[in-house]
């Protein structure tokens, strides 16, 4: 057991672990919550195959439940015509076989599923080893991340665990003292431990990947966190590092020790996890029944299906039937959307008083629509980081924030500094913030002190009681009072973003590059208005562990204000404008770029850095601010009717009140009901009421002859939108495993994630309150519909030279619809790359009726 494993085995193990880890998706910590496609690393398979595979390994449901489709049919959200059109298309057929990561293909269903040794033992003997392993591992993961487990010298999770588990009473009670000693001696480092345990558990080489995959799949939360840390996080990310190999080593050590101990057949008390029971048979037959899968006919039990549709549906088995229904569900929306886009009137050609660039976030759609309605304003959509992959350090902040999508790493750091030479106002603010932070840490120290905690609770209670009452009964007034006190302690000071080129910062050339990329990708290269507002977004909520999930995903789960400020500072610089002019993007001297931040919870827009606005532009900016207020109020009113309790709860239902209310579990719906990603000039969508369901990215093919801008849009913002859509889809479709569960029982662990109740797995995905309204799903689980208005030649070239797009489009993770220009017909891209003209399902039926 102590022999060193050969390097060959270790190296092969690394590759096997990487392969096995494909079944879980990385889980970002709550401080920078990123929505991710849970099956992202299975995207090399088509959607249906990946869902089937994940169904076997993770146990998830990949399609919406029949009840949802039945309800949709009753409400005419799906019509018989939709179903007929899908059945005619032949969606039910399997696509060309793609590479599958199943290696052992023709063994029995058990091996094909991949189960852990503990699960097999449990099935045969009725023990509960697998759960005991899960619970213990979860306990140590949480303790390690919270810094409770001593980790000196910092050698990682496995080393720290090895040193402390020898004293663990829980391990002793399960496996005895000897077993506990064995636990810590299984390997000097993580790889060795894994190899030793796999040998002890008699796992043959060919079964290693499925076994390891199932180990990771048992707790997708902790495995996801470990995968994030090993594969996605920056190596210098602060805090204890829980790596994938260490996690597997600990899991396998427990499993090996528990199983070896169970084999010895000790006398065990009732309820002990290693003691066999009589539920054995029941468990196994039930599981076999599910794993083997019946060929029982599925029914979406509906009345009123026309006979021909019902007959054809009944010939399909469960998964195929689900595919048909899902496609019908999606196509119904697609038909509505394309029809609405076709029907909208041509916009008026009037010189805008100001232009505003909002993030592609679906929540911006409402505000943009109302802003264009209240005045002569033109809006654009661009990813909220404004093409600046930066690390931002606020003035006097302890750490820096990465303000870019997680698909890239920031290239430079940009700092905030006081304007001009004198620092006194900014220093005073910093001193005030330090006072507040110091008081908070003093309070924490007293709270944990053995002697000081008692009177602190007493005295603190008499202060906290009135505060709690104020927060519960009059939340927005309390918030105003708290902000006032904070302003008194730390008076706000004007600051600017430091955009000057310096060694280590962005040079003029680099700044121009990013500026050009932003403007060209948006299509804003001429006819600049006197004021161009660059508007990032964020969300203000109270008492919300998932606050970061409501902020800007393009800025890495942070607020977008600093990005907007940096972009505005860069675009206002004369050196940059000169170079832009050399590249034939002429920004008139009279054009001013202004930064703003849209608070999506209250639909208010704050113009930032107003002290930098010269007198000549103050009127325009002021008028723009007033227009934004009116537009925001209209957008908030529109949203209020959708929010549960919005009407009923009186004043507390107002969006403004909801954001300050600590008892509010659903301050805003976030990106629920997102459905489509539209890449086109604003002219295509202007005036159409998209109900806040579409991501809108501006694009002008006239300034993009090579398709570089289109490629940029499709390979980054579209991937981010797909992740968001997939996260919402899977969390809605399988809330038990892929959603974070009920928010009311959430318990924050180590500041990185939530568990439900007392312990166990970290939850992945979104909380139920973001997806469901009571029992009814508020979010419509559909795959993202990408609508592009660009030359098809360009689009096909872009797809041909980007494997990620081929995977997404050919694999039907995302549906693609495109047309050349407004006079063209909409075309739908099939999975084999061919285009077929779009025919709405309703007229398809008529045609079929006419023909046949």
């Amino acid at each position: 057991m102590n022999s060193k494993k050969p390097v060959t085995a270790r190296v092969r193990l690394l590759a096997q672990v990487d392969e096995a880890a494909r079944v879980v998706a990385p889980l970002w910590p709550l401080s920078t919550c990123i929505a991710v496609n849970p099956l992202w690393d299975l995207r090399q398979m088509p959607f249906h195959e990946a869902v089937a595979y994940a169904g076997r390994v993770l146990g998830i449901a990949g399609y919406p439940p029949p009840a949802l489709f039945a309800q949709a049919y009753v409400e005419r959200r799906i019509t018989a015509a939709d179903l007929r059109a899908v059945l005619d298309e032949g969606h039910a057929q399997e696509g060309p076989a793609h590479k599958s990561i199943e290696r052992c293909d023709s063994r029995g269903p058990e091996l094909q599923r991949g189960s852990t040794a503990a699960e097999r033992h449990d099935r045969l003997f009725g023990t509960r080893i697998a759960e005991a392993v899960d619970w213990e591992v979860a306990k140590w993961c949480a303790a390690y991340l919270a810094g409770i487990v001593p980790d000196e010298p910092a050698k990682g999770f496995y080393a720290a665990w090895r040193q402390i588990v020898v004293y663990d009473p829980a391990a002793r009670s399960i496996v005895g003292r000897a077993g506990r000693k064995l636990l810590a001696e299984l390997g000097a480092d993580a790889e060795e431990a894994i190899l030793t345990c796999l040998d002890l558990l008699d796992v043959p080489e060919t079964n290693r990947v499925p076994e390891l995959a199932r180990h990771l799949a048992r707790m997708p939360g902790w495995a996801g966190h470990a995968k994030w840390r090993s594969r996605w996080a920056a190596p210098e990310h602060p805090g204890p590092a829980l790596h994938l190999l260490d996690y597997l080593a600990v899991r396998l050590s427990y499993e090996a020790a528990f199983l070896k101990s169970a084999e010895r057949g000790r006398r065990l008390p009732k309820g002990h996890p290693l003691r066999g029971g009589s539920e054995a048979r029941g468990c196994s037959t039930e599981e076999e029944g599910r794993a083997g899968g019946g060929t029982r006919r599925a029914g979406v039990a509906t009345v009123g299906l026309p006979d021909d549709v019902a007959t054809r549906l009944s010939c399909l088995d469960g998964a195929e039937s689900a595919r048909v229904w899902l496609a019908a569900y999606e196509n119904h929306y697609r038909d509505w959307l394309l029809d609405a886009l076709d029907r909208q009137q041509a916009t008026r050609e009037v010189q805008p008083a100001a232009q505003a660039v909002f993030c592609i976030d679906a929540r911006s759609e409402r505000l943009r629509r109302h802003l264009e309605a209240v005045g002569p304003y033109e809006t654009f959509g661009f990813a909220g980081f404004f093409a600046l992959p930066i690390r931002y350090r606020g003035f006097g902040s302890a750490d820096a924030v990465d303000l870019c999508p997680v698909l890239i790493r920031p290239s430079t750091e940009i700092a905030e500094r006081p304007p001009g030479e004198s620092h006194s106002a900014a220093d005073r603010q910093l001193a005030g913030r330090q006072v507040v932070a110091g008081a908070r840490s003093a309070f924490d120290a007293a709270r944990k002190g053995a002697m000081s905690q008692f009177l602190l609770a007493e005295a603190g209670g008499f202060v906290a009681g009135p505060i709690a009452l104020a927060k519960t009964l009059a939340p927005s007034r309390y918030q105003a009072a708290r902000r006032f006190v904070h302003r008194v302690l730390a008076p706000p000071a004007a600051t600017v973003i430091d955009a000057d080129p310096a060694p280590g910062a962005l040079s003029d050339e680099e700044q121009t590059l990013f500026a050009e990329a932003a403007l060209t990708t948006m299509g804003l290269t001429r006819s600049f208005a006197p004021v161009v507002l660059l508007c990032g977004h964020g969300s203000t909520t109270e008492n919300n562990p998932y606050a970061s999930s409501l902020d800007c995903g393009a800025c890495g789960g942070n607020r977008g204000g600093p990005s907007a400020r940096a972009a505005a500072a860069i675009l206002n610089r004369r050196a940059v404008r000169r170079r832009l002019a050399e590249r034939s993007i002429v920004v008139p001297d009279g054009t001013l770029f202004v930064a703003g931040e849209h608070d999506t919870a209250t639909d208010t827009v704050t113009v930032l850095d107003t002290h930098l606005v010269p007198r000549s532009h103050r009127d325009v900016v002021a008028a723009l601010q007033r227009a934004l207020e009116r537009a925001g109020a209209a957008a908030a009113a529109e949203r209020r009717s959708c929010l549960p309790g919005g009407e009923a709860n009186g004043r507390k239902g107002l969006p403004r009140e909801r954001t300050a209310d600590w008892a509010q579990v659903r301050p805003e719906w976030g990106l629920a009901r997102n459905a489509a990603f539209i890449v086109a000039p604003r002219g295509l969508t202007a005036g159409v009421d998209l109900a806040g369901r579409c991501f809108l990215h501006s694009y002008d093919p006239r300034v993009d002859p090579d398709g570089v801008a289109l490629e940029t849009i499709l390979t980054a913002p579209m991937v981010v939108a797909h992740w968001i859509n997939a996260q919402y889809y899977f969390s809605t479709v399988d809330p038990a495993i892929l959603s974070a569960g009920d928010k009311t029982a959430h318990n924050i662990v180590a500041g990185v994630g939530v568990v439900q109740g007392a312990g166990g797995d970290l939850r992945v995905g979104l909380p139920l309150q973001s997806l469901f309204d009571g029992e009814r799903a508020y979010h419509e689980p559909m795959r993202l519909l990408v609508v592009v208005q660009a030359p098809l030649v360009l689009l096909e070239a872009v797809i041909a030279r980007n494997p990620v797009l081929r995977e997404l489009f050919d694999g039907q993770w995302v549906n693609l619809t495109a047309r050349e220009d407004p006079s063209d017909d909409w075309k739908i891209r099939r999975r084999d790359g061919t285009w077929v003209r779009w025919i709405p399902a309703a007229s398809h039926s008529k045609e079929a009726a006419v023909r046949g």
Partner: protein
Amino acid sequence: MDETWGLTQMTKVEVVANGDDVAAVTGLFTEVGARGFTAVSNVSGLGHSGQHQGRLLFNDRSSLTYLTVVLPPERAGVLLDGLRELLSDRSGVMLVSDTWVSRPEYFR
């Protein structure tokens, strides 16, 4: 070549892999004991699974990276085992060749 020019023979392994897989590949390099490697990101090309664009402005993980590592021949076999396993189901290629280096101590 080697004796007259004072060079030592080593094995060079070149890997072209997705940005997503770079961390796993470099992990293998480290495990085998390679002292260092070179990585060139955002390369383009045409391959068995289709064409690959080079520079994607805002996506490091879907573009290709070209990695080179040089090892003593006795250790190269181990690395190849692992790489073979890793790249078996993904798009990526591995090229192995002999090379001669003038400072063998850098690579042992």
